[in-house]
């Protein structure tokens, strides 16, 4: 088997993230409009998208800026909301370990929820010699779309029609990517536990429910693997 050349992987990465744009572009438009109405100057509103590049954290931060929160409190909130990215970093680190440092720095910069979901789907498919180009394509396309849609939202103050449920495209894409991760009993147990715990902890602020549910679900996956491994060993004895 020959690996795809870099430009093919890059273009495949761009193509694979296209369905996500259904959700990302309206989200960026609304962020731009919301930041302006919260009193953030246009250049700084774009700065949020350029420098932080994390949708949920930007929404909460811009709202807090508008309501006059202390800068340190807003930065701390951004940190809490983005803690989940450490899970993405841990999950992808073994795949990126062989890359030169500049690649690690660039791909980390682009590591959003969406880029993580797409990359974990790509790294599941094999022929990985040039797979980092795929992640670069996905990440750069998402980054560019986020900048353009933020600018449009700032300029137009767009209010999208509420009955157009495009934001639903994001969970649907994650659902499609979830399917191939359920390869055995322990991974299915991790998914079931993660989903149920996230629903139970849905009331926690700052996406903490997602972080706690995911960590607990990973532990449950490990425990189920341990138990089923032991049972198999006993069965073979």
């Amino acid at each position, binding site marked *: 088997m020959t690996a795809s050349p870099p430009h093919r992987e890059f273009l495949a990465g761009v193509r694979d993230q296209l*369905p996500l744009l259904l959700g990302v572009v309206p989200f960026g438009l609304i962020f731009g409009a919301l930041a302006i109405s919260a*009193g*953030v100057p246009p250049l*700084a509103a774009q*700065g*949020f998208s350029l*420098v*932080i*590049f*994390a949708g949920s954290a930007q929404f909460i931060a811009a709202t807090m*800026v508008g309501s006059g*929160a202390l*800068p340190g409190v807003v*930065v701390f909130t*951004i*940190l809490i909301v983005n803690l989940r990215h450490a*899970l*993405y*970093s*841990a*999950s*992808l*680190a*073994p795949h990126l*370990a062989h890359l030169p*440092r500049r690649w690690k720095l660039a*791909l*980390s*910069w682009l590591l959003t929820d969406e880029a993580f979901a797409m990359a*974990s789907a790509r790294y599941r498919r094999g022929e990985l010699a040039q797979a980092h180009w795929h992640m670069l394509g996905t990440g750069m396309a998402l980054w560019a779309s986020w900048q353009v849609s933020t600018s449009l939202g700032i300029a137009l103050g767009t209010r999208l029609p509420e*009955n157009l*449920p495009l934001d*639903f*495209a*994001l*969970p*649907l*894409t*994650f659902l*499609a*990517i*979830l*399917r191939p*991760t359920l390869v055995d009993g322990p*991974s*299915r147990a*991790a*998914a*079931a536990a*993660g*989903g149920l715990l*996230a*629903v139970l902890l*849905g009331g926690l602020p700052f996406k903490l*429910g*997602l972080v706690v549910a995911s960590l607990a679900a*990973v*532990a449950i*996956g*490990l425990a189920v693997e341990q138990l089923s491994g032991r049972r198999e060993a006993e069965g073979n004895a």
Partner: protein
Amino acid sequence: MPEGSIWLVVGLGGLVTYLIRLSFIVVIPQERLPATFRRALRFIPPAVLASIVLPELVLRDGALALSPDNHRLLAGLVAALVAWRLRSTWLTIGAGLLALILLSLL
């Protein structure tokens, strides 16, 4: 908030976000991590993806909504069926969005 403070939020918020994203890829060396940690890594995608998706389907305004009035739950079930049978990202999204739009027209 004065404009200088907003830029401070942008700069420091961007820095902490980048450091979190760099954490395991650059900052913490792989070989220092215990074996159990490495065995746990494969459970992160199913755990996180399910944690993101399920609340989007069954929670409405923070409350559990398991009735047919919850169109996102029904559309999500249609999409899950398509994802499980056909394993296509585009068809899953298309089926889910179409179901949600049709339900809202009923």
